[in-house]
């Protein structure tokens, strides 16, 4: 285990950063995702001697996990089995412990692309919240970028820092405990992009501007209410931001199903009946239907889920150009 900074002795050589780089074999200290089913997975920290309970029984880390390959099927003590997956920011987002409301991957994807993030980008974020977006940003800007994240809630900031350390990404992120609306991001003219997810983003827009590089950069603000968007857009215009655009992105998930619908019974017991109109088209159609089993038609369909997220928040993007 490598709980202490600087401890090398018990580390397996070439141990790598699991959130930043794929590796094949599970090691002690890794965060891994236990997959029980589509809507049922959770994250664990793999530890020598550790154990995890699932509804299929216990998983013993030392014997069941360490040294096994990611993606393996793990048999639990009661005979049931689970899959053990390599962590990704997307899996982390659906398994992380919530300390706040979080951003989900649909919005996150859009934020990362529209902020033009890539390896080497310098990004400012506030608030850190539960670190859902932070992990996705870090993944994208590694190995040479840097994230400056500001969270005014001391406990949350500390918890986030702990997680970054545990996930071995702390060298790419700086957490500051301060109020972004009063003190800004604590950095000037170094950021390629700024992201705001706070109740009053308009109060932080001027700090966002000063955090961005002289040659310019991108900004995004996430707000659930249109009034917040309204005020933020005004503040952005006042601060000289350009190309201000507001979007809403909605995810529609489809259940893939084979559906069968029953054919109507017209009471045509006698197939040679002369009563029905008998033009060629209807005859051939009737023949096709007659072939299908027991008077039903089967087809594959993508059925929308019964409920979907109708609204998460508005995303407002803008550019600061070279002034």
């Amino acid at each position, binding site marked *: 285990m490598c709980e202490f900074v600087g401890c090398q002795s018990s580390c397996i050589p070439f141990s790598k950063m699991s959130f930043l780089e794929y590796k094949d074999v599970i090691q002690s200290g890794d965060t891994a995702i236990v997959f029980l089913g*589509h809507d049922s997975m959770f994250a664990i920290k793999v530890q020598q001697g550790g154990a995890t309970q699932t509804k299929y029984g216990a998983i013993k880390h030392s014997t069941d996990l360490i040294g096994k390959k990611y993606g393996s099927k793990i048999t639990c003590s009661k005979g049931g089995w689970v899959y053990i997956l390599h962590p990704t920011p*997307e899996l982390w987002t659906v398994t992380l412990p919530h300390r706040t409301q979080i951003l989900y991957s649909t919005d996150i994807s859009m934020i990362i*692309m529209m902020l033009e993030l890539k*390896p080497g980008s310098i990004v400012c974020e506030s608030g850190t919240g539960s670190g859902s977006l932070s992990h996705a940003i870090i993944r994208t800007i590694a190995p040479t970028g840097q994230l400056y994240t500001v969270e005014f809630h001391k406990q949350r900031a500390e918890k986030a820092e702990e997680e970054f350390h545990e996930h071995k990404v702390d060298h790419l992120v700086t957490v500051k405990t301060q109020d972004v609306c009063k003190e800004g991001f604590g950095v000037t003219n170094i950021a390629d992009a700024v992201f705001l997810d706070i109740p009053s983003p308009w109060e932080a827009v001027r700090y966002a501007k000063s955090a961005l590089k002289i040659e310019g950069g991108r900004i995004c603000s996430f707000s659930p209410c249109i009034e917040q968007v309204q005020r933020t857009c005004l503040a952005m215009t006042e601060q000289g931001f350009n190309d201000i655009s507001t979007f*809403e992105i909605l995810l529609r998930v489809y259940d893939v199903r084979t559906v069968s619908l029953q054919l109507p019974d017209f009471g045509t017991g006698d197939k040679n009946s002369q009563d029905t109109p008998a033009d060629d088209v209807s005859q051939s159609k009737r023949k096709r239907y007659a072939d299908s089993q027991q008077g039903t038609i089967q087809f594959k369909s993508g059925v929308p889920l019964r409920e979907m997220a109708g609204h998460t928040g508005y995303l407002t993007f803008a550019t600061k150009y070279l002034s």
Partner: protein
Amino acid sequence: MLENGSGLNVPNRGEEGDKGAAATSAVANAPSLDTVCEGHHVVLKRDDVFKAVQVHRKRKIIFEKQWFYLDNAIGHKYGTTFEVSIGGALQPRKAKSEEIEEPNEAGVDNRNIIDDGKSQRLSRDDIEALKGQGLKGQDIVQRLIENSTTFRDKTEFSQEKYIKKKKKKYEAFITILKPTARIMAMMYHCREPGKICHLRYDTLAQMLAFGNIHAGCKVIVVETCAGLVLGSVMERLGGYGSVVHMYPGSMPIRAAMENFGFPKSFYDHLYDFPINKLNSLLSGKFSAENETLQNQTKVELGEGNRSPLSTQQGDGVLCAKTVMDNNQAGETEAKDVACEDTENKETNADRKSNVEERKSKQEDRLKKLQAAAAVLQERNADGLIIASRLYPSPLLLSLLEFVAPSRPFVIYCQYKEPLLTCYADLRERGGVINLRLSETWLRGYQVLPNRTHPKLTMSGGGGYILTGITIAMDRDKSVASIPEPQEFEEALAKRQKVEDSIS
């Protein structure tokens, strides 16, 4: 593998990269990455319209019904806004001090505004004459306002709208930007959606995220989206890791990827592999095929020289283009040879060298092909991205063989139905979990004081994606044609649940 050593040099090496010999002097004078140089791939922006071009001196550019030369832009920083003046010269826009003065007078409603077609006192000829005098767009707009009899009666909002509309028409401000995935995706979606299988930018964003594309990955990309998806993946890799581009036909088409203007080093680990050699690779007969392969590449090369990529560009670029081709092979010696050869070709001299050039090109291609095959045969790819006009299911089933366990994959399709089949086929094959078929809707908003509402039109469809994660296949059992008991139980339970919720 994280190639830290070579990778860290990327930003420095970047600049000279793909610009060819012509640009090197300019680069030497302006070492900054943020300055427009000859040979750079840039994006022109006017309002919300983008166009990707390569910077050349004395080359006429036509954009949004205007023509101009980019000569004056060279040496300016990216993000600079220019105004087109007489003769197509670009002048950096001055600070926005001379804004059009807004009149204080405004009407309350439009009850007295009658459309008689005579509210504008300037005729079309008058306006043309003003333009001919070389009057600035701003001044023309001012004249139009002064000569509009109804302007003062319009409401404040419609005055603003009027000015905005006229400004758009007469004021031509062009901003020069660096290409990014965002801009390229928006540009292609707007201008040529057919070329990118109607892949909307938010869908592309989903693909990159759910594919967990990041520095150090080894990604397999199948795409016929003009290279847009490939370019976006390469941008996210940032020069670390590798990509195998699987393509149908004889040559990969990558016009959009070239527009990204990646540094030369990004091409070191870009491999390409023709889909029609996939069967032989899967059956292990690939290397034995070398002989026939050579013959085929001969033909391919012939076609390659006439590919749309080379013909689109002028003769002057041919040299740089060839350099780029060779960069992909990562062969530095070959670069000089090829460059020389192209020059020879331009002077129409010496057939012999032509033959030799062909031979060396052919060998290069063969080497590249073998390298790509070797990369695939490791069967440890970190991800798979498919976005093509081909029927996706067979592609997916074959290519998953090359992906390591516990890795994400994403398939894009413009239509939902082929992905339904994919889903069913994957279920039958096994070796995957967490399958999800989804679509995103993107709604734009107009946000203005007291006039905020969703945009009047939105894109009707940006395609569908199927995502999932690979797992280790059960090699002992007959290759997962029968559902596992647990899975079967779960499926049953789920079906029960669904039926319950429906009834």
